[in-house]
């Protein structure tokens, strides 16, 4: 199902010109305190293009980050720019933004079409334009067949998709999704993840937050990790892992005779340590994961051992988060 994100039926006033070289979202040393509590401290981020996952534990500052970005709350210090404009007390940049709030509550009494049409009109569209646009976005999230049903009758997954559709109605440059997968069953989850991926593929800037790390892994590799109000890391998740050099990378090989295999591997320059975690596995520690992986297949094949599994036990988001936050799960 290909998206139809053409400008068909758009209000003329809604045309936007992309500003060159300005990040879509820019946080410059932004802090937010509630009383004694630092919700966000000194966050500096510039984001544009592609899907970015915002990760962090409960209370890490993800919601505060989004609220600041959407002008819901005022930063205690620092500057926020959305398309180069300050969003606090200024709704102008929102004509280029689509926001999917975390809250479960929706207007249950409206039909999906009505809901999106009404809120499309707040973008300055006329009634007719709005309903054309609403139909288009509902089609994009595959809800066009049920758009005349009341939202109250929808399942959670469908409600999330209505929320996403409503955020897409103005053909936004930036799409912000706060916990879009929460409470959805796997079917709806997969569908929504596909929608998000498609949006990213279309060149929009998409920000997604989630608690569930492997879901983010399935959508994107570009992540921002927030912890206790600070940005811990930003960029490609694998690259981030590579940069964490103080932790030796681990490669786990499953084989019948690990000691035999170890003899072949121990000669490689990159290996910093070998251990036998169980009788049928060999754990390699290295500080140069890429190099190691490049050479490894050949070494294994040459050694004549049968390796039935290769794993990097600490090269996933969970480990990154664990290492960065100093916690463990």
């Amino acid at each position: 199902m290909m998206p139809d994100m053409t400008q068909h039926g758009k209000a003329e006033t809604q045309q936007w010109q992309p500003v060159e070289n300005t990040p879509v979202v820019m946080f410059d040393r932004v802090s937010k305190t509630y009383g004694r509590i630092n919700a966000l401290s000194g966050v500096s981020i510039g984001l544009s293009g592609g899907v970015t996952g915002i990760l962090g534990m409960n209370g890490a500052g993800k919601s505060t980050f989004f609220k600041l970005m959407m002008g819901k709350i005022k930063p205690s210090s620092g500057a926020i720019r959305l398309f180069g404009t300050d969003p606090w007390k200024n709704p102008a940049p929102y004509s280029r933004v689509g926001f999917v709030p975390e809250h479960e509550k929706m207007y249950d009494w409206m039909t999906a079409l009505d809901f999106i049409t009404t809120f499309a009109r707040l973008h300055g569209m006329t009634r007719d334009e709005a309903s054309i646009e609403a139909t288009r976005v509902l089609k994009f999230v595959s809800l066009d067949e049920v758009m005349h049903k009341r939202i109250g009758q929808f399942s959670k997954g469908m409600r999330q998709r209505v929320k996403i559709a409503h955020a897409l109605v103005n053909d936004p440059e930036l799409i912000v999704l706060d916990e879009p997968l929460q409470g959805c069953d796997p079917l709806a989850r997969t569908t929504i993840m596909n929608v998000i991926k498609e949006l990213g593929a279309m060149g929009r800037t998409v920000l997604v937050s989630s608690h569930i790390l492997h879901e983010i892994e399935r959508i994107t590799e570009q992540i921002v990790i927030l912890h206790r109000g600070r940005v811990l890391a930003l960029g490609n998740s694998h690259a981030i892992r590579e940069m964490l050099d103080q932790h030796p990378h681990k490669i786990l090989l499953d084989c019948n005779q690990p000691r035999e295999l170890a003899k072949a591997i121990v000669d490689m320059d990159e290996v910093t340590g070998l251990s036998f975690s169980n009788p049928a596995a060999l754990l390699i520690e290295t500080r140069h994961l890429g190099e190691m992986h490049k050479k490894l297949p050949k070494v294994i094949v040459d050694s004549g051992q049968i390796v039935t599994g290769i794993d990097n036990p600490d090269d996933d988001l969970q480990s990154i988060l664990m290492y960065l936050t100093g916690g463990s799960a």
Partner: protein
Amino acid sequence: MSEIKSPGEPFEPEPTKNETFGSETPVTGQTKMQAAWSSDVENAESTAQVASMPTGQIFQQIYQPWNGTLNPRWMRNWAILRHHVLGIVSKGHRPWNVPTKLFIFFVVIASMTDAAMALLFGMIGDTTLYDIWGVNRDNMYGHVMGFFPRNILWYPIIAALLVGGMISEDRANGTSAMYFSRPINRFDYAAMKFLSVGLILFFVINGTLAVYYFVDILVMGKGWSWIIDTFPMFMATFLCGIILSFTYTSIGLALSSVSRGRFFPAIGLIAILMGTKSMAAIIDGLFDKSVLYVISPYDAVAHVCQALIGTEMTYDHPWVWSLISVVVMNGLALYLLANRVSSLEVTRE
């Protein structure tokens, strides 16, 4: 094997780590207790405890069974009643908000002005003033049913504050699930909520009435003949207090059961009590007809009480109409309450 570790610092590998790899789990069991339950509130200065355990478990969790017997139904109901009523005076039970507690305290004190005045003038020996404030038929009636300020500013507002969140808060917080997923049926739930509100109102209205009456007996040294004379009157007034608390409670709880918020029931109760009263007053003033007072809960109860206590009737229509009206109003309210409570959800959908 544990140490204190500041959470902001980057993770440092423990020297003991390689040992832990000797066991069957590939991933280390570095654990953090505080981090698991760190709340959104206190973050800055909190420290984390790091414990290292080979199995990867957070800490030794041991399930502790309990082999007691559970008490029967009436004990469960008693728990609900205690929860609500004791919440007014002590912590650890239903958290009534501070304005409500303060207001109840204020009304209890203010309601005893008549007792205090009677005491004062009785002690001084000023018989004229004592006759104004002392126990008699009209003063008894006035203690329970007096309109200003008791039944415009005090009792209805206590009722409104009490019923405000009584059922609607269970709806909003989802705590109704806590009741109905336990062996408590809806009848018991509604009945205990009703009793709780009714009991607090009863303590305020009839408690102060009793103080008023018995202070007079004890301090003024009234004889048995006086007591025998006035006791039926006191009992009639006491009954009136019960009817009044019952009526306010049933209307208020019915409103509380239909809404989600705390404020609709409170405003609704005040609007019903004051709105019907002022409507009837307009009609009485314009056309000299008192019959519309039967729709005003306060006036209907007041009329019945005038008949019961035997004070002068201030309404023209027969008091039986008011009695019927009281019965009908309470019936309707209780029906609504029962109906709505039976539709409370266990899972919030």
